[in-house]
């Protein structure tokens, strides 16, 4: 016998004192749990599908050029030679510039908000910094083209090169066109700032008050309390936030495409235009004429996918570690 909701009714004991027992879950429950399990499985399935589709499409190129695909800097769709080194180099260098600029700033603003700012100032400033994350990439690019580039071209780049004599380092030499690795790095720094600062702010706010008070009670100045007691406590969480920002910077497309100059060459100077994997894809994908070209672009996408996958996994793991530790300690 079955109930209307799909549960089976079976005799549990025969004869005198016979009882019936209801077996299984109602059909609605089974449908529901099946449905949400399916939706949950969509996430890993989507990731697998991305890896598979892009990997398979890029395989011919990866197979043909092997490791040379990553190290060769010749990218010529006409002759069918594909080496992604300039794009990989540009991706890494622009992200490093972004991290170098954004990390101190993000930690500074987070410390300001967690340890220094009066209560009434915390929310508005935090909100404004978070707002940076809401601005679309293409708007950053637009602003970069018409505001940042002219400023870089005229006072900033000549100032760095001629007045500060930084051309001797080899990083700030050559003509100041504007579109450059430096411009891309600066816009990326602004874009990843909110990601780093929101994670580090959260971690810093989770540092117990007692930690600060103990340092101050021992006679530390406010800065010494921050440097000696607060920052070490929050270190791995902040590192997680920085790596999260790195993940963003590596894959950022539109703003970089609009500012980096899109030239597939490796140049030591940060004033020179460059290329990133993402901007290479944005520029050439819709114009890919041959199957070989398309496959090479797919291979670039696959490399980008793998790199960001690893970076994000590390970042999540670090942040997760911290939240587990701090919740364990305060509880």
């Amino acid at each position, binding site marked *: 016998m079955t109930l209307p909701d799909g549960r089976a009714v079976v005799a549990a004991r025969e004869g005198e004192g016979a009882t019936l027992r209801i077996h299984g879950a*109602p059909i*609605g*429950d089974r449908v*529901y*749990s099946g449905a*949400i*399990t399916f*939706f*949950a499985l969509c*996430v*890993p399935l*989507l*990731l697998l599908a*991305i890896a598979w*589709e*892009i990997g398979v*499409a890029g395989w011919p190129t990866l197979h043909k050029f092997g490791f040379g695909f990553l190290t060769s800097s010749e990218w010529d769709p006409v002759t069918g030679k594909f080496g992604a080194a300039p794009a990989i180099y540009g991706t890494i260098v622009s992200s490093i510039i972004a991290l170098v600029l954004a990390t101190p*700033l*993000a930690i*500074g*603003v987070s410390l*300001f908000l967690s340890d*220094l700012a009066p209560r009434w100032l915390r929310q508005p400033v935090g909100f*404004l*910094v978070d707002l*940076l994350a809401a*601005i*679309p*990439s*293409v*708007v950053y*690019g*637009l*602003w970069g083209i*018409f*505001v940042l580039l002219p400023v870089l071209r005229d006072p900033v780049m000549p100032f760095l090169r001629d007045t500060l004599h930084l051309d001797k380092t080899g990083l700030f030499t050559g003509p100041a066109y504007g579109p450059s690795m430096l411009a891309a790095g600066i816009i990326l720094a602004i874009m990843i*700032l909110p990601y780093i600062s929101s994670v580090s702010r959260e971690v810093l706010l989770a540092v117990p008050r007692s930690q600060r008070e103990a340092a101050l009670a021992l006679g530390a*100045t*406010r800065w010494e309390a921050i440097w000696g007691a607060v920052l070490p406590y929050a270190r791995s969480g902040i590192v997680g936030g920085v790596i999260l920002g790195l993940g963003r910077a*590596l*894959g950022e*497309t*539109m703003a970089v495409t*609009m500012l980096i100059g899109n030239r597939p060459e490796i140049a030591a100077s940060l004033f020179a235009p460059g290329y990133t994997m993402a901007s290479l*894809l*944005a520029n050439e*994908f*819709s114009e890919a004429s041959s199957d070989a070209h398309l496959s090479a*672009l*797919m291979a670039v*996408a696959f490399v*980008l*996918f793998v790199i*960001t*996958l690893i970076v*994000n*996994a590390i*970042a*999540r793991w670090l942040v*997760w570690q911290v939240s587990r530790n701090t919740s364990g300690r305060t509880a």
Partner: protein
Amino acid sequence: MSAATPPMAPPLRPTLRQRAFSERTVRTLKRRRVVSGAMLGVLIAAAVLAVLPLIFIFAHLLKLGIGSLSWDFFTKMPKPVGEAGGGLANAIVGTLILIGLASAFGLPIGVGAGLYLAEQRGTRLANGVRFLSDVLNGLPSIVMGIFAWQFLVRPVGHFSALAGGVVLGAMMIPMVARTTEEMVGIVPVSLREAALALGYTRWRTSLAIVLRTASAGIVTGALVAIARIAGETAPLLFTAFGNQFWSLSLKQPIAALPLQVFSYAISPYDAWHSLAWAGALVLIALIFIISLIARFATRARFATGGGD
């Protein structure tokens, strides 16, 4: 416990060594205070510097965008180079259609996955899915776009609004899943238990009691996710592709504000540049309106939270 107080000793004059030591301490203390003050100043400077770009960007958007805004901008179609006027009506409508498609695709899956994460908390699959959804959230949007091209556009042979909507929806899934999980997680267990005790089946408890209680928070999360995908450009380059003409068909390429801003920004024409600024301003305004609604939804949640 109090120790016996020693008899008052006559005040001793500090020895020379003691005096030197204390002077050194005072000096280092002074230096430490100066360092501390300077570093706190650096922190304040960092905060100012972090907020400055935002102010600059908004100032320029308003200054350069408002001048190009007019009624035509919202109602007219783009005009070829050289002709004055013209607007981005098709791109505005296109963006709204793409947002609708993305929500229709991404919200149910995201909410469902979030329910699973909240209800199966601690199981191996839930932990794995949570981790992977965070990883998915961090994937470059251009990679999502290329995947969608390979998966949805290439087999069909042409760009389509549908592909654009689906890829934006896929980007919403991890965000919506995580906020849903969080919001369902803070619904008191007693509420669920009360429903079950009254004879509600599990699925009705989950949907009619738990999900409904958490709905305001989930709406907020969904709106935040929509605000984030509304400005995405990279995934649309090879899916929705953009369209110079009026099109509402889901099977055809469709215009979108971010795409239009991009192509106008890199064009060599001044008239198009000012249209790009206006487009960017409208895009930001759209995102802000959505975010504001999200904030009000959050406030409503807290308001009813006490009353219920």
